[in-house]
């Protein structure tokens, strides 16, 4: 066997990210690693990559057992990981990227000829068509990814880990990648394939391991398994989410978007009624995030945005906020959180002005508002003065929700981008609960974007399927399930393939 992980454990603060995970991958096997956000997939991969030392357990690669790895040991042991965010230098050529940090030398000089030959062999092996001298930044995503894989292969790995490799690829690039994966498998590589997409599991994987809440939930061969079996293995037990509030068709829409268009987007038309939760489902690159940002005025736009019957003319966040729109962005670290500021500042920054009197802050009113907010959102720990970076991902997200849902600001339309990214399972359910509650009790209209079909099914009253910047389908009620969402995306995938 190429890789054997035994009893791996890791906690961060109080969060048990991995609680004794076993994973075995044979040479020449494609092994699907599945599970929802927060199940522990990325923690497991990071442990393999040597991003941290596990608390307990062993990682055995190619017959040698390790209690923990550093990034360097991980590479030397034969583990190669292709993350979603590639580690390439855009301004360097393909060949320079492949050998970055491990240049082939002769007499102390870089042996360019040998590098070019080796690089060409690697690219051929992968079926990559890019030239050795192309600037990596100019390549399409699929070719970039192959360069990254070539770079990994140049170190002669035993195990290749692919973290949602198709998430950012176009449909015909996906086909090419799947062929590459199969040929690497035939060459005897052990492949760990992380994905959300069941079609890929069906087409590629020999075995699968499903993680849930930091443990192995199911580990089984996929021989003779149907899609239904896979879905059942992944599905979580139903949770006690508060019921969705009634949505009245007679109500005028709280958010009305007409002819929204911009670079790569649109035209998009959509409506969200008071108390309604609408999910924007689509793969990475389908335009979900940009649609939300355009509605919020973060990006320039054409078309009209109407909130509560009044048009928001200026495309700026301030104009959107004044109209009652609010956005919790997907990139929490960069766009949402003020990591070094206190929890109170993070949650109440826009509310401080409303609470102030004669231009002066009212600390007591702020402290009370924070306490109410921390209680209603179950923020833990409920310490107003701790810096936001000390909180877990889930609690950081609650602070950001609290920034708009606090009874002080007039938020009537809440835009959420990937509301549970980087959040553990418990916090995910708490966040669902909060969103449901504000929709049903405060009649807030919620529009959220997600790449996780299970999340869309769990949270949305109605789902819009996005692809290439357009809404290509709508699902609601009994018709809204994971199968239907995946089908909607893949349906159009095969249409595209027929066209091309």
């Amino acid at each position, binding site marked *: 066997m190429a890789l054997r992980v035994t009893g791996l454990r890791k906690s961060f603060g109080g969060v048990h990210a991995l609680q004794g995970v076993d994973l075995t991958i044979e040479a020449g096997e494609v092994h699907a690693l599945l599970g929802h956000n927060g199940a522990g997939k990325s923690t497991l991969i990071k442990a393999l990559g040597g991003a941290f030392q596990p608390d307990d357990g062993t990682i055995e690669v190619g017959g040698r057992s390790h209690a923990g790895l550093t990034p360097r040991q991980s590479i030397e042991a034969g583990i190669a990981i292709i993350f979603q965010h590639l580690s390439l230098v855009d301004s360097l050529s393909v060949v320079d990227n492949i050998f970055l940090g491990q240049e082939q030398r002769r007499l102390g000089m870089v042996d360019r000829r040998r590098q070019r030959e080796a690089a060409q062999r690697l690219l051929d092996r992968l079926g990559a068509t890019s030239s050795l001298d192309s600037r990596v930044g100019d390549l399409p995503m699929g070719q970039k990814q192959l360069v990254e894989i070539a770079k990994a292969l140049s170190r002669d790995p035993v195990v290749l880990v692919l973290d949602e490799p198709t998430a950012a690829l176009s449909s015909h690039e996906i086909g090419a990648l799947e062929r590459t994966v199969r040929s690497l498998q035939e060459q005897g590589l052990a492949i760990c394939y992380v994905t959300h997409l069941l079609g890929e599991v069906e087409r590629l994987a020999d075995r699968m391991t499903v993680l849930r809440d930091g443990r192995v939930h199911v580990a089984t061969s996929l021989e003779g398994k149907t899609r239904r079996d896979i879905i059942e293995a992944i599905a979580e037990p139903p949770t006690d989410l508060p019921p969705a509030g009634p949505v009245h068709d007679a109500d005028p829409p709280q958010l009305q978007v007409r002819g929204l268009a911009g670079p790569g987007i649109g035209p998009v038309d959509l409506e969200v009624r008071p108390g309604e939760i609408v999910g924007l489902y689509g793969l990475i690159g389908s335009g979900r995030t940009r649609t939300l940002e355009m509605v919020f005025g973060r990006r320039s736009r054409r078309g009209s945005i109407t909130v509560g019957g009044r048009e928001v003319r200026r495309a700026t966040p301030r104009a959107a906020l004044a109209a009652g729109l609010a956005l919790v962005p997907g990139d929490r670290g960069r766009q949402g959180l003020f990591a070094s*500021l206190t929890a109170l500042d993070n949650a109440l920054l826009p509310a401080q002005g409303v609470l102030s009197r004669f231009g002066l802050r009212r600390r007591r009113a702020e402290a009370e508002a924070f306490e109410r907010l921390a209680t209603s959102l179950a923020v833990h720990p409920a310490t107003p003065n701790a810096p936001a970076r000390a909180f877990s991902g889930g609690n950081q997200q609650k602070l950001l929700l609290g920034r708009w849902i606090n009874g002080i600001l007039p938020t009537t339309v809440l835009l959420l981008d990937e509301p549970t990214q980087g959040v553990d399972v418990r916090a995910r359910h708490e966040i669902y609960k909060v969103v449901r509650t504000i929709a049903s009790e405060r009649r807030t209209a919620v529009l959220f974007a997600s790449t996780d079909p299970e999340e869309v099914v769990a949270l949305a009253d109605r789902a819009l399927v996005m692809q290439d910047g357009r809404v290509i389908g709508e699902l609601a009620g009994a018709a809204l399930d994971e199968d239907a969402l995946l089908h909607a995306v893949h349906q159009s995938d095969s249409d595209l393939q027929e066209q091309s």
Partner: protein
Amino acid sequence: MSTTVNPRQLARYPLIPVIVAMAIGFELSTGSFMGSQNLLGIATDSATLAIVAVPSALLVISGYLDLSVGSTYALGAVAAGWLASEHGGGLLTCVLLSLLAGLAVGAVNGFLCCVVGLSPFIVTLGTLTAVRGLAQQFAPLPLTSFGDSFAWLGGAKVAGLPSPVVIALLVVLVAGAILALTPVGRHIYAIGVSREAAYLSGVRVRTVPFTLFLATGACAALAGAIKASVLGAVQSGTAGSGFELAVLTAVLVGGVALTGGSGTLVGVVLGVAFLGILQNGLTLVGVPTFWQQVAQGLALVVAAGLAYLAPRLEALAAVRPQAARRTTSEPTPATT
């Protein structure tokens, strides 16, 4: 465990023990350092630095930077001095003209950095040079004989304190009130931590730093005018040359991070006091000027080192209890 000093608290204002140690050292070696005359002298000498360092610090906290203050200082001094010496200008008109000159420089800096979005380092490096040229073109020869009214700006006493000290205190109080008591104070930090997140939260990410550029320009010009009034003369080529580096040193030694988003006004005031005391004490002890400069430079590097170490020390303190728990489960206790 309970008797140990919390390293986080100590790391917050490491300048306090340093300043206390310096004061004791200088007093012991000279016997005249702690006299009220000398302390008031230090305060007066440091006042112009404080007047500019405080708004500059707010600018740095919000993620921007103004290197042009040395030349703005000269322009402010020249503007006031020219009106006083050649047109017999009174106190009010001189100060007003000086402030206008400072606001103009601040507006140019602010427009280019906040509205156009150019790098503040490059823009203010440019205005540092350009404004110095402007001041010299305007008054190529030294200006003197300002008249009694303008001399009052730097020479008056208010409640026993020299007027520069009173003005510096006012600047500190106003800035402190803005930072601590108003929502805008939090916006200044928020913009410095993450401009994007602040923008998406509805913070005025252009107006706030633009206003701070205006304030920094006005304060730099005012400081120049005060110094001109104190000295009774101004020379456009040398007034305030190198002043921008002293300001930046005070801000950084005071614990404001160049990356923005962190720092306190108390720290900046301590930074100004530290530099003032260092210079004064070393002069009293008889250290030559050039060695004083060496000491100032080293102080900056040491402060930077402390700023680099502080979060690591904090992290170490935070990890400790966990490490302690782990050692109990091991057969041989680790010495750390």
